[in-house]
């Protein structure tokens, strides 16, 4: 049963990864990217890393890709001009791709012929023994609490930085002040005045 799903997910993942870089329409590229993420999620589940799988779905597909899509849909860039450099840059891209592919192949060969003794193997928790959400929680909040907090601070800085660089205070913007609205009273907003007939206010 398992290999069928493995091949299903990986073939679709590879196919859609290729489509990401070959489709003409950038919005289609993003949709294919989402499909790639989705299938990698499937692969994660097959490996038994269900927590990471769901996280990938929530973070990348649910948030990051939505942002991509927003930007690409709204920007309306002339993508054909961006594509003009394709032929020029293709050899470099192919070269980098070939190097990466070579590295992967070599690492597989290495795994087959004895270099599999990777030190530090004892660090990996056996996934079957403990639910992996729990396993992650156990180390993140104890052994690595210092790093976890540091990472949190980095995200905070990133947020503050984005606000500092993009937030502009504009004049004459009317804003709703909910507290002020609800605290408004009949006495300070309505005035009853007796109007004499035929004279007006």
């Amino acid at each position, binding site marked *: 049963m398992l290999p069928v799903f493995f091949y299903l997910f990986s073939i679709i993942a590879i196919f859609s990864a290729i489509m990401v870089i070959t489709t003409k329409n950038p919005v289609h590229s993003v949709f294919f990217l989402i499909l790639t993420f989705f299938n990698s999620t499937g692969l994660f589940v097959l490996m038994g890393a269900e927590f990471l799988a769901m996280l990938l779905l929530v973070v990348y597909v649910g948030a990051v890709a939505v942002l991509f899509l927003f930007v690409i849909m709204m920007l309306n860039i002339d993508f054909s001009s961006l594509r003009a450099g394709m032929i020029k840059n293709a050899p470099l891209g192919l070269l980098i791709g070939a190097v990466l592919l070579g590295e992967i192949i070599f690492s597989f060969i290495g795994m087959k012929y004895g270099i599999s003794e*990777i030190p*530090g193997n004892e660090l990996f928790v056996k996934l079957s023994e403990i639910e992996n959400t729990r396993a992650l929680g156990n180390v993140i909040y104890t052994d690595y*609490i210092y790093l976890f907090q540091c990472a949190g601070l980095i995200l905070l800085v*990133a947020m503050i*930085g984005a606000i500092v660089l993009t937030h502009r205070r504009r004049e004459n913007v009317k804003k709703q002040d909910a507290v002020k609205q609800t605290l408004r009273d009949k006495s300070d907003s309505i005035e009853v005045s007796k109007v004499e007939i035929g004279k007006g206010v």
Partner: protein
Amino acid sequence: MNSVSNISDLSIALPEIFLSLWLLIFIPLGVYSGGNKLNRQSYFSIFSIIGLLGTLFFLLMGDHRASLGFYDLVVTDKLIIYLKALILFAAIIVLIISERYRSIENLYIFEYPLLILFSILGMLVMLSSNNFITLYLGLELQSLALYVLAAAKKDSLKSSEAGLKYFILGALASGFFLFGVSLLFGITGTTSFTILSFNYLNPNEVSLLLIFSIILIISSIAFKLSIAPFHMWTPDVYEGAPTSITAYFAIVPKIAAIGVLMRILYIAFIDINFIWLQLVLVLGLLSIFVGAFGALLQKNIKRLLAYSAISNIGYIFLALSLGNQLGLESSLLYITIYAISSIGVFTFILSMEKDNIMLENISSYAGLSKSNPFYAVCLGILLLSMAGLPPLAGFIAKFYVFKAVITSGYLLTAIIGIIGSVISAYYYLNIIKVMYLDDSDESFIVESKVSMKIILFTSSLFILTFIIFADNIINFMTYISRAIIL
């Protein structure tokens, strides 16, 4: 099951914990009290200075003995405490001297001191890291804050360019760092400095991959220190960033990165020092010359100081490349004196303002000796010291570096270094020439805050009279540098 941490763990990171709590108070305070109104600004500077003083207090009151904590992710010893104190001290001074500049350039946002505090926090984390992961997180925390600060002047094209340039190249350097660390982890199975220093790196079995990973790690730190040939961003960023931020860039992050480099080289990779000795040496010599020649034709004082920083850090690399105690203590001495004289020089630059326009061209300092003799004399002393004229502090720092190099048996290296130092003396002396010998069409009187005058005066006095208490300070450097050499 493991407990979260015990009390001694918390006491190791007490300064960091205090500073991050202070920051968490700072943010809502800034947002809800109308933090970007003009009249509130000095309160926020004072608030952040108090925070830094508190951090300094916890740092100095804490335990000074060498110890590990947080599952060996964090380390502290005398050297780290000294460098942290130096960083906090320098940051406080920089915050004080940038007050006036911020009012002139309309940089009145409360996020400015906030981000400076964040970057300080990052540096503290970096300095007390005993693991490449901790180091990386500290580095990113510091760098992210600095990228934003470089682009803080939103309406200036140059500032935005500086921020973007710094960000892209910095991200690339972080990538190098991570690549190097992941290779190292692949080879040894650990990222902890102490574990690496024990027995995981066998000098007899050095693989090509290990050399590659060490080169990647060192070059990414060299990027943060703007060491040649990774210095390309420095002049542009220094010129484009707001001057007060440039002052901060030139002084504070350098101390942190040097401290980290000491820890990586002298603890993690000490057993295999034959790999990095020559690398660091070549980088050092190259930077001395790039800094010396690059500065010769600069018209803008900020660009000139960028090159000056490159060559000064080059001397520290030269000292570090010795791989022994002498190198360590002379580089400590050098970074201390560099920090203090840079504070002086930048105080001077931040005071130079005419009709609410900052003067950044060297030619605009012409005739300063007549119009503002106090400033001219102070800057003269500082520049003569940087040029390496005896008996000023800069001379003593350079002297110790070269003495260490020669006693370690690298006479040729010392001679090449001295030649570089002589070349760089030219542009320092050129500024003095402009101030004292050139005539200017229009003279102006510098009106500056008393606090800035005091800082300028104190730093030049320190540089001038350093030789009197030099022995004590050098003994102190020897004492703290023993923390790292076993």
